[in-house]
């Protein structure tokens, strides 16, 4: 196999844009750090096979490794995190950001080709100086989901699906992608009048995922998108936390559900669980909301040393049973992403290859996806 006279600086650039240290990258590639450094310093020319492996492991376009010079650094989404000491983003997170950026770029291409295939974004605005509870009440009214409907949803899984649908009706693409849980809860992107929310699918509970959906929705309202961990130190994060809690657990409905009490009240675990089930949110969201509204005493949320929510173990897969790739893809990329892609294909704004790239499955699955998303 032939040696390729690549620019070592390009190999280093590719590694760095995927957030890989020299050690991590060498381990992924199955070489020593010295050997990888030799390639990056141009002391040694890699073979084509090695570059293909690098493209595969770094999850980066093979062609980019052959470029004569690195590309200028692209701006990453703003980083609002503080909870885990702003640990560097891992390759899984960076690739998820890339996946959604690519999708938005393609939807932007489609929007320039044909009208009315890509849904128009319809969201309000908010300022950091606003009262998050008032903004939440306004948005709740715009969404038109009565509290009785929310109470009637079967469980938090159904609530997550319904809330996602409601958000997507406003032209926001929603994604659920597994990313390291110690890194972030989710992120949002707003560009060229296209918006996307990505929820970390490894979050402990469905309730936590619902909270993240609305936390990220608030980032879009503020036009301050980026990467979140829902900490209470960062001003934007705190605002978005308050918004999500007020949106999902409106104060009047909460006091109605609690009944007559003398505040601040020392709520038991059973009380918390009952309220969380009623509002289809996580225990921690209820606990935080009770403290924040003064219904529970100051420090109520922090006093508990055990976790508020214990994640349910995933349902075991029966022998011979296979996870449906169609359901998996719809959950990952969202119904709006799927329906926009299929509509663009029908209107010939893209071809079936582009559609399979966006959907992540071959053209043979398109009819089934269409049937599933309705």
């Amino acid at each position: 196999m032939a040696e390729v006279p690549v620019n070592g600086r390009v190999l280093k650039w590719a590694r760095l844009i995927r957030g890989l240290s020299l050690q991590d990258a060498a381990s992924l590639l199955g070489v020593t750090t010295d050997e990888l450094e030799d390639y990056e310093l141009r002391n040694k020319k890699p073979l084509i096979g090695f570059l293909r492996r690098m493209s595969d492991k770094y999850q980066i376009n093979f062609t980019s490794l052959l470029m004569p010079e690195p590309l200028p650094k692209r701006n990453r989404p703003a980083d609002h995190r503080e909870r885990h000491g702003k640990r560097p983003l891992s390759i899984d997170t960076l690739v998820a950001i890339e996946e959604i950026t690519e999708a938005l770029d393609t939807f932007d291409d489609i929007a320039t080709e044909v009208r009315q295939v890509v849904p128009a974004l319809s969201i309000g605005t908010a300022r950091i100086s606003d009262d998050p509870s008032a903004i939440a009440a306004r948005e709740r009214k715009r969404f038109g989901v009565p509290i009785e409907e929310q109470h009637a949803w079967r469980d938090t899984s159904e609530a997550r699906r319904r809330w996602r649908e409601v958000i997507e009706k406003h032209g926001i693409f929603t994604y659920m992608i597994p990313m390291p849980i110690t890194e972030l809860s989710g992120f949002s992107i707003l560009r060229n009048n296209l918006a996307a929310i990505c929820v970390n699918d490894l979050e402990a509970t469905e309730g936590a995922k619902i909270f993240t959906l609305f936390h990220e929705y608030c980032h879009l309202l503020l036009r301050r998108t980026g990467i979140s961990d829902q900490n209470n130190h960062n001003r934007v994060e705190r605002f978005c936390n308050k918004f999500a809690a007020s949106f999902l657990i409106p104060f009047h409905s909460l006091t109605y559900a609690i009944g007559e009490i003398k505040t601040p009240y020392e709520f038991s675990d059973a009380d918390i669980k009952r309220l969380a089930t009623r509002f289809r949110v996580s225990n921690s969201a209820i606990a935080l909301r009770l403290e924040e509204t003064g219904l529970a005493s100051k420090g109520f949320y922090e006093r508990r040393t055990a976790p508020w929510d214990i994640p349910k173990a995933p349902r075991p897969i029966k022998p011979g049973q296979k996870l449906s790739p169609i359901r998996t893809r719809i959950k990952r990329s969202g119904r709006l992403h799927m329906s926009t892609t299929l509509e663009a294909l029908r209107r010939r704004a893209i071809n079936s290859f582009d559609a399979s790239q966006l959907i992540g499955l071959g053209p043979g699955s398109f009819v089934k996806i269409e049937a599933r998303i309705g």
Partner: protein
Amino acid sequence: MKRRRRLPMFQSLEPPVYVIDTSAWLNIDSRPDSEDVWQLIVDLINEERIIACARVLGELRDQPIYMLRLKPFEAALQSGDRQSNDVDYLMHVGKVAHKHPGMSRAVGRKTPADPYVVALAELENCIVVCDESNKRPSRKIPGVCQMRGIQCLTLDQFIAKEKK
């Protein structure tokens, strides 16, 4: 097989060779005259005047057109392609990707065929046949071909030219 690069002043003496992109291949079957077009394409393949680079065939492999139409001609279509270990070709593809990162999705996860098509057409002095629009030129083959002085035809234009 490597074709000798023709000098522009002698271009008109030889019949043109076409590099067909994924978008054009996929649009053939939706045409009312698709059978005639396929016949024309088969004739041109037999005359070694159509190339589909390996990356394009890779993109088409999951599409119905591949098994129905292209598989029998795979070897013939690729006879004019550069080999996947042709270092000069690969480095040229890298240059195209660097100059046109939008079209090449240079920081993306996947490796699209577009810069391979452009680089092959440039090195072999071929005409690109592509059915992409030119509305965002820096992200699409026709715009990039225009910037690089490579002739690029739509499927309609290609058919009209060859039916003359």
